[in-house]
Protein backbone atom coordinates (compact mmCIF):
# COMPACT_ATOMS: atom_id res chain seq x y z
CA UNK A 1 0.00 0.00 0.00
CA UNK A 2 0.95 3.64 -0.05
CA UNK A 3 3.65 4.98 2.22
CA UNK A 4 2.31 8.34 3.26
CA UNK A 5 3.91 10.35 6.02
CA UNK A 6 1.68 10.19 9.06
CA UNK A 7 1.74 13.99 9.38
CA UNK A 8 0.01 14.39 6.04
CA UNK A 9 -2.88 12.17 7.04
CA UNK A 10 -3.22 13.98 10.34
CA UNK A 11 -3.08 17.36 8.59
CA UNK A 12 -5.89 16.31 6.25
CA UNK A 13 -7.91 15.26 9.29
CA UNK A 14 -7.13 18.60 10.93
CA UNK A 15 -8.20 20.58 7.88
CA UNK A 16 -11.48 18.66 7.61
CA UNK A 17 -12.13 19.10 11.34
CA UNK A 18 -11.46 22.84 11.08
CA UNK A 19 -13.85 23.18 8.15
CA UNK A 20 -16.53 21.39 10.17
CA UNK A 21 -15.82 23.67 13.13
CA UNK A 22 -16.19 26.75 10.93
CA UNK A 23 -19.49 25.37 9.68
CA UNK A 24 -20.79 24.83 13.22
CA UNK A 25 -19.70 28.29 14.34
CA UNK A 26 -20.69 30.35 11.30
CA UNK A 27 -23.88 28.80 9.91
CA UNK A 28 -27.31 29.57 11.30
CA UNK A 29 -29.33 26.88 9.55
CA UNK A 30 -29.59 23.91 11.88
CA UNK A 31 -29.39 21.39 9.01
CA UNK A 32 -25.98 22.78 8.04
CA UNK A 33 -24.87 22.66 11.66
CA UNK A 34 -25.73 18.96 11.78
CA UNK A 35 -23.86 18.34 8.51
CA UNK A 36 -20.82 20.15 9.88
CA UNK A 37 -20.94 17.96 12.98
CA UNK A 38 -20.90 14.93 10.68
CA UNK A 39 -17.80 16.36 8.96
CA UNK A 40 -16.10 16.83 12.33
CA UNK A 41 -16.89 13.28 13.46
CA UNK A 42 -15.61 11.93 10.16
CA UNK A 43 -12.36 13.88 10.53
CA UNK A 44 -11.87 12.52 14.05
CA UNK A 45 -12.37 9.00 12.70
CA UNK A 46 -9.86 9.71 9.96
CA UNK A 47 -7.29 10.71 12.59
CA UNK A 48 -7.93 7.45 14.45
CA UNK A 49 -7.49 5.36 11.31
CA UNK A 50 -4.29 7.23 10.36
CA UNK A 51 -2.83 6.57 13.79
CA UNK A 52 -3.94 2.94 13.67
CA UNK A 53 -2.28 2.38 10.31
CA UNK A 54 0.87 4.16 11.52
CA UNK A 55 1.42 1.49 14.17
CA UNK A 56 -0.22 -1.32 12.20
CA UNK A 57 -2.81 -1.99 14.91
CA UNK A 58 -6.56 -2.54 14.40
CA UNK A 59 -7.47 -0.37 17.41
CA UNK A 60 -7.85 2.76 15.31
CA UNK A 61 -10.37 1.05 13.07
CA UNK A 62 -12.30 -0.23 16.10
CA UNK A 63 -12.48 3.36 17.36
CA UNK A 64 -13.79 4.43 13.96
CA UNK A 65 -16.56 1.83 14.26
CA UNK A 66 -17.58 3.31 17.61
CA UNK A 67 -17.54 6.81 16.11
CA UNK A 68 -19.71 5.50 13.28
CA UNK A 69 -22.29 4.06 15.69
CA UNK A 70 -22.28 7.29 17.70
CA UNK A 71 -22.73 9.38 14.55
CA UNK A 72 -25.68 7.25 13.46
CA UNK A 73 -27.33 7.63 16.88
CA UNK A 74 -26.62 11.37 16.96
CA UNK A 75 -27.97 12.05 13.50
CA UNK A 76 -31.22 10.11 14.05
CA UNK A 77 -32.05 11.98 17.25
CA UNK A 78 -30.76 15.26 15.80
CA UNK A 79 -32.92 15.07 12.70
CA UNK A 80 -35.97 14.16 14.78
CA UNK A 81 -35.26 17.27 16.86
CA UNK A 82 -34.87 19.34 13.66
CA UNK A 83 -38.30 18.20 12.50
CA UNK A 84 -39.74 19.10 15.91
CA UNK A 85 -38.08 22.52 15.86
CA UNK A 86 -39.33 23.25 12.35
CA UNK A 87 -42.81 22.11 13.33
CA UNK A 88 -42.77 24.29 16.41
CA UNK A 89 -41.00 27.47 15.26
CA UNK A 90 -41.65 27.29 11.48
CA UNK A 91 -37.98 28.15 10.85
CA UNK A 92 -34.60 26.41 10.88
CA UNK A 93 -32.82 29.34 12.55
CA UNK A 94 -30.84 28.17 15.56
CA UNK A 95 -31.51 31.49 17.29
CA UNK A 96 -35.24 30.76 17.31
CA UNK A 97 -34.71 27.89 19.76
CA UNK A 98 -32.63 29.88 22.21
CA UNK A 99 -34.96 29.56 25.20
CA UNK A 100 -35.40 26.39 27.23
CA UNK A 101 -38.97 25.69 28.20
CA UNK A 102 -40.58 22.50 29.36
Amino acid at each position, binding site marked *: *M*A*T*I*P*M*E*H*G*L*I*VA*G*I*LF*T*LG*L*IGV*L*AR*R*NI*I*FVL*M*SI*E*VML*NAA*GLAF*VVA*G*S*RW*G*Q*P*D*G*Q*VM*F*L*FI*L*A*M*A*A*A*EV*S*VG*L*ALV*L*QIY*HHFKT*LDTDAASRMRG
Partner: protein
Amino acid sequence: MNVVFYLSAAIAVIATILVVTRVNAMHALLYLIVSLLAVAIIFYTLGAPFIAALEVIVYAGAIMVLFIFAIMLLNLGPHSEEQERIWMRATGWAGPVILAALLLAEIIYIIIGRSPTIGSAQPIQPAAVGAALYGPYLIGVELASILLLAALVGAYHLGHIRRALREASVEAAALRARTLESRPTGEQEPLGQPK
Protein backbone atom coordinates in the same frame (compact mmCIF):
# COMPACT_ATOMS: atom_id res chain seq x y z
CA MET B 1 -0.75 5.16 -4.49
CA ASN B 2 0.63 8.35 -2.97
CA VAL B 3 -0.89 10.35 -5.81
CA VAL B 4 -4.26 8.75 -5.07
CA PHE B 5 -4.00 9.79 -1.43
CA TYR B 6 -3.14 13.41 -2.15
CA LEU B 7 -5.72 13.72 -4.93
CA SER B 8 -8.54 12.33 -2.80
CA ALA B 9 -7.42 14.48 0.13
CA ALA B 10 -7.68 17.57 -2.09
CA ILE B 11 -11.12 16.45 -3.31
CA ALA B 12 -12.26 15.92 0.27
CA VAL B 13 -11.09 19.37 1.37
CA ILE B 14 -12.62 21.16 -1.64
CA ALA B 15 -15.92 19.30 -1.32
CA THR B 16 -16.07 20.09 2.40
CA ILE B 17 -15.44 23.79 1.73
CA LEU B 18 -18.34 23.68 -0.73
CA VAL B 19 -20.52 21.93 1.89
CA VAL B 20 -19.93 24.72 4.38
CA THR B 21 -20.59 27.53 1.90
CA ARG B 22 -23.66 26.31 -0.03
CA VAL B 23 -27.06 27.96 0.36
CA ASN B 24 -29.11 25.03 -0.89
CA ALA B 25 -29.24 22.20 1.63
CA MET B 26 -29.55 19.48 -1.01
CA HIS B 27 -26.50 20.74 -2.93
CA ALA B 28 -24.49 20.79 0.30
CA LEU B 29 -25.63 17.25 1.01
CA LEU B 30 -24.44 16.00 -2.38
CA TYR B 31 -21.06 17.67 -1.86
CA LEU B 32 -20.92 16.04 1.56
CA ILE B 33 -21.43 12.65 -0.10
CA VAL B 34 -18.52 13.44 -2.45
CA SER B 35 -16.38 14.37 0.53
CA LEU B 36 -17.24 11.13 2.33
CA LEU B 37 -16.42 9.06 -0.74
CA ALA B 38 -13.06 10.82 -1.02
CA VAL B 39 -12.36 10.03 2.64
CA ALA B 40 -13.27 6.41 1.92
CA ILE B 41 -10.56 6.34 -0.77
CA ILE B 42 -8.13 7.84 1.77
CA PHE B 43 -9.01 4.99 4.13
CA TYR B 44 -8.29 2.47 1.40
CA THR B 45 -4.90 3.96 0.62
CA LEU B 46 -4.08 3.96 4.33
CA GLY B 47 -4.59 0.21 4.45
CA ALA B 48 -8.06 0.08 5.98
CA PRO B 49 -10.29 -1.52 3.30
CA PHE B 50 -12.92 -2.62 5.84
CA ILE B 51 -13.36 0.93 7.13
CA ALA B 52 -13.46 2.24 3.55
CA ALA B 53 -16.39 -0.08 2.79
CA LEU B 54 -18.15 0.90 6.01
CA GLU B 55 -17.66 4.58 5.22
CA VAL B 56 -19.43 4.13 1.90
CA ILE B 57 -22.20 1.91 3.26
CA VAL B 58 -23.01 3.60 6.56
CA TYR B 59 -21.93 7.23 6.14
CA ALA B 60 -22.52 7.90 2.44
CA GLY B 61 -25.39 5.42 2.35
CA ALA B 62 -27.48 5.32 5.50
CA ILE B 63 -26.73 8.60 7.28
CA MET B 64 -26.94 10.72 4.15
CA VAL B 65 -30.24 9.06 3.21
CA LEU B 66 -31.52 10.12 6.64
CA PHE B 67 -30.49 13.69 5.85
CA ILE B 68 -32.22 13.54 2.47
CA PHE B 69 -35.40 12.24 4.12
CA ALA B 70 -35.30 15.03 6.67
CA ILE B 71 -34.79 17.74 4.04
CA MET B 72 -37.60 16.32 1.91
CA LEU B 73 -39.89 16.12 4.95
CA LEU B 74 -39.13 19.75 5.78
CA ASN B 75 -40.15 20.73 2.23
CA LEU B 76 -38.28 24.03 2.41
CA GLY B 77 -39.07 25.59 -0.94
CA PRO B 78 -37.30 28.36 -2.87
CA HIS B 79 -37.63 31.14 -0.30
CA SER B 80 -35.30 29.28 2.06
CA GLU B 81 -32.36 29.91 -0.30
CA GLU B 82 -32.93 33.66 -0.15
CA GLN B 83 -33.19 33.45 3.63
CA GLU B 84 -29.94 31.48 3.67
CA ARG B 85 -28.21 34.12 1.52
CA ILE B 86 -29.30 36.79 3.98
CA TRP B 87 -27.88 34.74 6.84
CA MET B 88 -24.65 34.08 4.93
CA ARG B 89 -24.19 37.77 4.16
CA ALA B 90 -24.10 38.58 7.83
CA THR B 91 -20.70 39.49 9.19
CA GLY B 92 -20.56 36.54 11.55
CA TRP B 93 -18.13 34.69 9.31
CA ALA B 94 -14.84 36.47 9.95
CA GLY B 95 -14.43 35.65 13.63
CA PRO B 96 -14.94 31.86 13.49
CA VAL B 97 -12.89 31.54 10.29
CA ILE B 98 -9.90 33.44 11.70
CA LEU B 99 -9.95 31.62 15.04
CA ALA B 100 -10.36 28.19 13.45
CA ALA B 101 -7.59 28.93 10.93
CA LEU B 102 -5.28 29.88 13.80
CA LEU B 103 -6.11 26.62 15.57
CA LEU B 104 -5.45 24.69 12.35
CA ALA B 105 -2.08 26.42 11.94
CA GLU B 106 -1.17 25.46 15.50
CA ILE B 107 -2.17 21.84 14.90
CA ILE B 108 -0.13 21.65 11.71
CA TYR B 109 2.86 23.23 13.46
CA ILE B 110 2.64 20.71 16.30
CA ILE B 111 2.19 17.72 13.97
CA ILE B 112 5.10 18.68 11.71
CA GLY B 113 7.38 19.54 14.58
CA ARG B 114 6.80 16.52 16.79
CA SER B 115 6.59 13.34 14.73
CA PRO B 116 9.41 12.88 12.25
CA THR B 117 8.71 9.18 11.78
CA ILE B 118 7.22 7.98 8.52
CA GLY B 119 4.50 5.40 8.67
CA SER B 120 4.51 2.47 6.32
CA ALA B 121 0.90 1.47 5.92
CA GLN B 122 0.46 -2.25 5.92
CA PRO B 123 -3.13 -3.18 5.16
CA ILE B 124 -4.98 -4.31 8.27
CA GLN B 125 -7.31 -7.14 7.39
CA PRO B 126 -10.95 -7.11 8.51
CA ALA B 127 -10.30 -10.31 10.50
CA ALA B 128 -7.88 -8.45 12.76
CA VAL B 129 -10.42 -5.64 13.24
CA GLY B 130 -13.15 -8.13 14.09
CA ALA B 131 -10.92 -10.02 16.53
CA ALA B 132 -10.04 -6.78 18.31
CA LEU B 133 -13.66 -5.58 18.25
CA TYR B 134 -15.06 -8.72 19.88
CA GLY B 135 -12.02 -9.31 22.08
CA PRO B 136 -10.74 -6.45 24.23
CA TYR B 137 -13.39 -3.99 23.00
CA LEU B 138 -16.44 -6.15 23.71
CA ILE B 139 -17.74 -3.79 26.38
CA GLY B 140 -17.57 -1.01 23.81
CA VAL B 141 -19.77 -3.01 21.45
CA GLU B 142 -22.30 -3.51 24.22
CA LEU B 143 -22.26 0.19 25.06
CA ALA B 144 -22.69 1.07 21.37
CA SER B 145 -25.71 -1.22 21.15
CA ILE B 146 -27.23 0.43 24.23
CA LEU B 147 -26.55 3.85 22.69
CA LEU B 148 -28.21 2.83 19.43
CA LEU B 149 -31.21 1.49 21.33
CA ALA B 150 -31.49 4.75 23.24
CA ALA B 151 -31.26 6.69 19.97
CA LEU B 152 -33.98 4.48 18.46
CA VAL B 153 -36.30 5.07 21.38
CA GLY B 154 -35.50 8.78 21.40
CA ALA B 155 -36.11 9.25 17.68
CA TYR B 156 -39.36 7.27 17.93
CA HIS B 157 -40.48 9.34 20.90
CA LEU B 158 -39.75 12.66 19.19
CA GLY B 159 -41.45 11.59 15.98
CA HIS B 160 -44.41 10.21 17.88
CA ILE B 161 -45.03 13.45 19.76
CA ARG B 162 -44.95 15.31 16.50
CA ARG B 163 -47.53 13.02 14.94
CA ALA B 164 -49.77 13.28 17.99
CA LEU B 165 -49.48 17.06 17.87
CA ARG B 166 -50.39 17.14 14.21
CA GLU B 167 -53.37 14.87 14.75
CA ALA B 168 -54.50 17.07 17.61
CA SER B 169 -54.12 20.19 15.48
CA VAL B 170 -56.02 18.52 12.62
CA GLU B 171 -58.80 17.57 15.01
CA ALA B 172 -58.87 21.09 16.42
CA ALA B 173 -59.04 22.53 12.92
CA ALA B 174 -61.86 20.14 12.01
CA LEU B 175 -63.70 21.09 15.18
CA ARG B 176 -63.24 24.79 14.44
CA ALA B 177 -64.45 24.27 10.88
CA ARG B 178 -67.49 22.39 12.13
CA THR B 179 -68.38 25.15 14.59
CA LEU B 180 -67.85 27.79 11.90
CA GLU B 181 -70.05 25.79 9.55
CA SER B 182 -72.75 25.24 12.09
CA ARG B 183 -72.91 28.88 13.12
CA PRO B 184 -73.77 30.34 9.69
CA THR B 185 -76.33 27.60 9.05
CA GLY B 186 -77.78 28.24 12.48
CA GLU B 187 -78.05 31.91 11.57
CA GLN B 188 -79.38 31.23 8.14
CA GLU B 189 -82.13 28.94 9.28
CA PRO B 190 -84.01 31.64 11.16
CA LEU B 191 -83.54 33.82 8.14
CA GLY B 192 -84.72 31.07 5.84
CA GLN B 193 -87.87 30.22 7.80
CA PRO B 194 -89.61 33.54 7.32
CA LYS B 195 -89.12 33.13 3.60
